[in-house]
């Protein structure tokens, strides 16, 4: 029986986990680095344990420290959140050895699914659709041509030992096969000392769609529908939504079934995500599995009413899943926007620092998972994501309208944020029409970054306020008079009359 959970994380996800712990009557333990003593996850926890210096390599990533905290404070279980140690097989194993429940899968499962090659193999065995291709070494140009003709163009030739884009060639036309093979091989040889290459189908501007899965230790596994995560900037997700605008009930049923097959193939226990690439023709391919809670899990919770963290803790505690597949329904539409402390007008440069005040939008259909409070200094050491703004509404268009409303009432006073950038995404035609894939931000970059609605009135207002603020800073100001409104209006209009006279000369 889990009675105390140590949350081996910080920021919004640590708080997210603690909220559910509190609701379940479970005590929570925060761990914190030097930079995080004043962080909200420490203030909100029942107990707190210091684990080292600010850089995460010296605190949040130090297994010994985390285990020490759990032992000293007698935590029954550790929730790793996302990032940090959440997909670390060694850590999962270490917890097991120390007699602490790791709220996540076993080291074996993390091992198999964490490595893309072995995951791909496992999925093929389980009958899950993966990107067509070969992993056998291609010996001759003739073999290459034969295989590529089977797979169909376009294809990607990839160095087996490759990484970072090196030793890769995209082939769109048959005539380029031989030159591309040679290019990839020679680059692979000079780059990695190994000219082994393999061939994969190239998925053109794919949709990135993932399925939430949950498994328990009694052999049950379910999926909790899809999330559309195609709005990405440099492989960083910015906006997620569910249901996916691309989805049909048939496709959902098929992909959901495959996601459950994937989870069952590894006897998955806990929350996981099966990521798929989907093309415009509804062909889908297993991409990878994330063996942890995702940043974007709230949109799933909003449309189903499921508390995924509660399920994680329940199944980690050996309980069977409280839902069967047929219990779950999608209701309405949910969108999540990730609020980053960064400056979109300055190459998305991070913007840590003092938040003098923060005003949250709130109201109907709004959920905020964040960790910044008025007076908090966002540290320079960690991720720039400071808040997730999640909306729910009966329909997709109403959810977009609600997100725009919420973004316009969201004020972070002190650091730069991407709030205007997010607001522009909600106004982009491609997004509104639900007609987008992973190419969306690149395609719409100009529209998203340079608002073209420069307004003379607003500009005049900005000038006026800067002028007044500057005078105040210089000390050129009267003290606030207690004059009433009516008196002001009269004197003001008198002065106005005079000035207008002057200007009319």
């Amino acid at each position, binding site marked *: 029986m889990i009675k105390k959970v140590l949350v081996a994380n910080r920021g919004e996800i640590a708080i997210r986990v603690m909220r559910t712990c509190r609701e379940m009557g479970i005590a929570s333990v925060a761990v914190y680095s030097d930079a995080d003593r004043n962080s909200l996850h420490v203030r909100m926890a029942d107990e707190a344990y210091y684990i080292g210096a600010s850089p995460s390599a010296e605190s949040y990533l130090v297994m010994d420290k985390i285990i020490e905290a759990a032992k000293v404070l007698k935590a029954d279980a550790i929730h790793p959140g996302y990032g940090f140690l959440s997909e670390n097989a060694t850590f999962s194993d270490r917890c097991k050895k120390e007699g602490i429940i790791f709220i996540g899968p076993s080291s074996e499962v993390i091992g198999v699914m964490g490595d893309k090659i072995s995951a791909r193999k496992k999925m093929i065995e389980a009958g899950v659709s993966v990107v067509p291709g070969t992993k056998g070494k291609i010996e001759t140009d003739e073999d290459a041509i034969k295989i590529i003709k089977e797979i169909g163009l376009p294809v990607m030739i990839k160095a087996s030992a490759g990484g970072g884009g090196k030793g890769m060639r995209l082939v769109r036309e048959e005539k380029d096969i031989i030159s591309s093979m040679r290019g990839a091989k020679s680059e692979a040889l000079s780059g990695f000392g190994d000219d082994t290459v393999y061939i994969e189908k190239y998925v053109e501007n794919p949709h990135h769609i993932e399925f939430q899965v949950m498994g328990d230790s009694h052999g049950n596994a379910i999926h909790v529908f899809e999330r559309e995560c195609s709005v990405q900037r440099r492989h960083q997700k910015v906006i997620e939504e569910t249901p996916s605008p691309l989805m049909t009930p048939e496709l959902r049923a098929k992909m959901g079934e495959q996601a459950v097959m994937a989870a069952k193939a590894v006897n998955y226990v806990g929350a996981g995500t099966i990521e798929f690439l989907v093309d415009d023709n509804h062909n889908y391919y297993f991409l990878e599995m994330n063996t942890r809670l995702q940043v974007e899990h709230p949109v799933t919770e909003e449309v189903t009413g499921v508390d995924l963290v509660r399920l994680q803790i329940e199944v980690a505690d050996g309980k069977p899943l409280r839902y069967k597949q047929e219990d779950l329904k999608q209701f309405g539409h949910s969108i999540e926007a990730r609020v980053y402390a960064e400056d979109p007008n300055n190459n998305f440069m991070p913007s840590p620092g003092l938040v003098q005040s923060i005003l949250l939008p709130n109201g109907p259909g709004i959920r905020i998972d964040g960790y910044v409070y008025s007076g908090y200094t966002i540290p*320079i050491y960690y991720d720039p994501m400071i808040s997730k703004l999640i909306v729910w509404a009966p329909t997709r268009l109403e959810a977009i309208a609600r997100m725009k409303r919420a973004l316009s009432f969201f004020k972070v006073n002190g650091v730069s944020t991407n709030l205007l950038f997010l607001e522009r995404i909600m106004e982009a035609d491609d997004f509104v029409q639900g007609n987008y894939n992973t190419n969306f931000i690149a395609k719409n970059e100009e529209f998203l970054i340079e608002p073209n609605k420069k307004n003379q009135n607003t500009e005049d207002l900005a000038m006026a306020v800067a002028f007044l603020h500057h005078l105040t800073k210089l000390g050129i100001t009267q003290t606030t008079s207690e004059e009433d409104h009516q008196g*002001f209006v009269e004197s003001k209009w008198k002065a106005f009359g005079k000035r207008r006279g002057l200007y009319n000369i």
Partner: protein
Amino acid sequence: MKLDVKIGERIATVELIERSGEYITLSVDGRLMELDTRLVEPNIYSVIHDYQSHDVLIHDGRNFKEYFISAMLENFVVQIIDAEAKYQALRGKGFAGEDENAISAPMPGKVVKIMVKVGDELKAGDTVVIVSAMKMESEYKVKQDRKVVEILVNEGDTIEAHQPMVIVE
């Protein structure tokens, strides 16, 4: 009271006409504006102008005469141009005292690497320092040929936003 104010390429003259507590009359390039302004939170003004309600956020910019403003889903960089700034401009140094002599970062961070030493002759585009913040490293370069005069920080130092790190000439 009258000052020139600059946004982008536009320079406008702003004049204070009357101030009665929070009720302010001023003109921007001769256009009269009556504002009811209240500082409702630190750096946030609630401004009512012609019955329109605006929440205006203002923060100090990279120097004493620069401000960053957010209003009505727009961002502005505003520079105050006073007599001193005009004199600098006449001398070809640009407005608002942009001090190209100090290499600084727009956000707080940690100095990862200092690529130069005092006396180095730098070519335009040479990297001077690398600063890390929030898992992202940024390189700060010189835009024209320069000489390193002084180094004010050490590797490993945490720095404030706009804090001068290296002085060049």
